[in-house]
């Protein structure tokens, strides 16, 4: 009983908070309402209210989806040092990584749901009732692995929370925690293959795609994590070891360097060879036949990523809190551009018959996306507010509950 009253107290924490907390939640609710209104308009009028067309069939929604799969996968960068290498400072905060994974997957599912033309037909994907094209369609694979990842991380998060609140060990789910590592690689690989398998789209139909997906995910997710951890540290006044942050930053630096190397390899192949497959690359970085909507964004992304690499490679910079944060913001923006619109749109530009339709998101798309991001932020905020006090209260038990001890 005391457990539930303990969790009940924790639940009360969710509705208690300072002025900043209330203002933040209120702001998120306003954004969510905006997004909802925009989505209702889209349901009423069809996807024509977006700027997607037959030439560019996927746009901002699927871009955000792709980026967020990366953020979700990156939770393993906390789980690996915590549970494989038993790095204590990160072990204490690993549950926040799992929480971020859960939040990111929820947003992923929302972004796909708002992208389909017939949400009322989505039950066709359910096995036995519908007719899912498994295992042939990579989209069905993606649904399986994403929901599996959501289930695994959601279960770990709540199980650990429950055990910690009772002051018990949670070592029994260590296998599940370890399973989440290959599973994270899996969600990202499957999402990459979703694009990769399309012979119609030379920009995606290159074997480098899945490795690049992983490299960029291990930049953006942890960068977001570093920022969020600092916010958590300030808001809840809990002690998060600085070594945890610099360790994550170090891992980010390797991933970022590798990501830029892969980009270079891609650029060399296209620009040296000069085959017709260079068109999407040209569209991205130079402009094609007078169309250059994405050019400034791509160069911004490249500049941000290279600058961030410099900041993260030099230990003196990455140990400086301020520069570390600047680097994280740079990486987030850089990867968001590169792996969002910079990945999806050039797959369709030029289209299969060489036509160029210049896609930029419509107001509806921006509003709906803002709503989904806000619901993700709200989900994370509420769950953090709910769970962190439990961990604070049981701090000693957390230490005792380490599976390895």
């Amino acid at each position: 009983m005391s457990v539930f009253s303990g969790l009940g107290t924790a639940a009360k924490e969710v509705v208690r908070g300072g002025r900043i907390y209330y203002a933040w939640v209120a702001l998120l609710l306003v954004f969510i309402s905006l997004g909802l209104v925009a989505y209702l308009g889209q349901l009423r009028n069809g996807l024509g209210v977006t700027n997607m067309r037959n030439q560019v069939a996927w746009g901002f929604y699927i871009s955000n989806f792709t980026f967020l799969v990366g953020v979700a996968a990156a939770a393993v960068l906390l789980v690996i040092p915590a549970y494989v290498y038993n790095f204590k400072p990160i072990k204490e905060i690993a549950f926040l990584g799992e929480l971020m994974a859960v939040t990111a997957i929820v947003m992923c599912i929302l972004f796909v749901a708002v992208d389909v033309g017939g949400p009322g037909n989505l039950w066709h994907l359910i096995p036995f009732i519908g007719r899912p094209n498994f295992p042939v369609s990579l989209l069905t694979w993606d649904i399986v692995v994403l929901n599996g990842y959501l289930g695994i991380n959601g279960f770990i998060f709540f199980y650990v929370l429950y055990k910690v609140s009772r002051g018990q060990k949670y070592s029994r789910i260590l296998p599940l925690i370890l399973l989440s590592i290959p599973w994270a690689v899996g969600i990202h690989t499957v999402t990459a293959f979703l694009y990769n398998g399309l012979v119609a789209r030379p920009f995606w139909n290159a074997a480098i795609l899945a490795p690049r997906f992983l490299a960029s995910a291990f930049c953006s997710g942890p960068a977001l994590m570093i920022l969020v951890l600092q916010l958590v540290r300030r808001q809840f006044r809990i002690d998060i070891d600085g070594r945890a942050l610099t360790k994550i930053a170090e891992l980010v630096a390797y991933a970022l360097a590798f990501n830029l190397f892969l980009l270079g390899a891609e650029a060399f192949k296209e620009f040296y060879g000069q085959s017709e497959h260079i068109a999407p690359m040209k569209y991205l970085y130079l402009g094609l036949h007078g169309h250059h909507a994405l050019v400034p964004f791509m160069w911004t992304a490249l500049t941000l990523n290279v600058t961030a690499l410099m900041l993260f490679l030099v230990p003196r910079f990455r140990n400086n809190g301020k520069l570390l944060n600047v680097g994280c913001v740079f990486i987030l923006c850089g990867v968001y551009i590169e792996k969002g619109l910079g990945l999806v749109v050039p797959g369709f530009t030029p289209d299969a018959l060489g036509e160029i339709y210049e896609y930029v998101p419509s107001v509806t798309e921006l509003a709906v996306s803002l709503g989904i991001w806000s619901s993700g932020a709200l989900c994370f905020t509420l769950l953090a507010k709910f769970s962190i006090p439990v961990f604070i209260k049981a701090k000693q038990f957390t230490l005792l509950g380490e599976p390895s001890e």
Partner: protein
Amino acid sequence: MKNDGCTPRACPSGEPSGSAPAERGAPLLQLGRRPPDRRAILGASVAAVAGVATGSGCGNHHFDAHYKELTDEDKRRIFERIEAETRHKTGVDVKISAPQPMDGVEFAYALDLSLCNGNRRCAEACARENNLPDVPKFRYIQVLEMDRGTLDFENANAYYEHDEVPVPGKVYLPVQCQHCANPPCVKVCPVTATWREPDGLVVVDYNWCIGCRYCIAACPYFGRRFNFHEPTVRPRNINPDMGYISNRLRPVGVVEKCTFCLQRTRVGRYPACLEACPTGARKFGNLADPNGEVRIMLERKRVYVLKEELGTLPRFYYFYG
């Protein structure tokens, strides 16, 4: 105004862009799914999250089974329902049918590029036969205009407007669904809403499609179209002879495509594009028939297919006669 979804709705602005002056003032009708009412919208947003079925939209087609699972009785019931809905909404009496593939038939197309002069009658005839929307305007057949001496899609133009064709120095390449024997679009569909029929036609079950557009991403030939807007066809333009998996009126939010005019070709007629072609560039027939038109072209002409290197095995052949 309460919209029950089954009364004709005049186009509010009266005049859509791009329509011919002679058609000015003719009322436009909303032919697809009705705009959902508030409850339906709530339901649909719940469905979007939970992935469950809801009853939004006219006719409850969200509960229809997959085409391949329909019994004759199901078909009769659904066809009658669609006929009644269409009559109610447009005032046009239509007949829905589902002609079946014939044994020993594999349809294929052949097109003589030396005859094609870019007049695009094929694309227009196709639009009328297959009830393509007047607004927004799109076509199943894209005729690419290219400089003589090239086959360069990137510098091609599908939106040329000339008083006279052919324009000297230009060549024309019509492209539509190639009805591949190894169709990449079919592979990627997450719900098996599109498939290749035994006679080689690649079709879509409009009631089953979830509108994810993965098939559009997968198609190397720009062979598929998505209904981003509520498709609207003027009542007098409606072709009442409708196939369930071909030219019946489509709802918003689903993918559609060329079916080689299945509603005609399976009952022994030519596709509309072929009949409309004034130059005789188009040939259509049964690959399995040694005396079929396409077989003769394959044997006598040097044919090629588009993007052969992709391994899609198109059943649409091009040749220079």
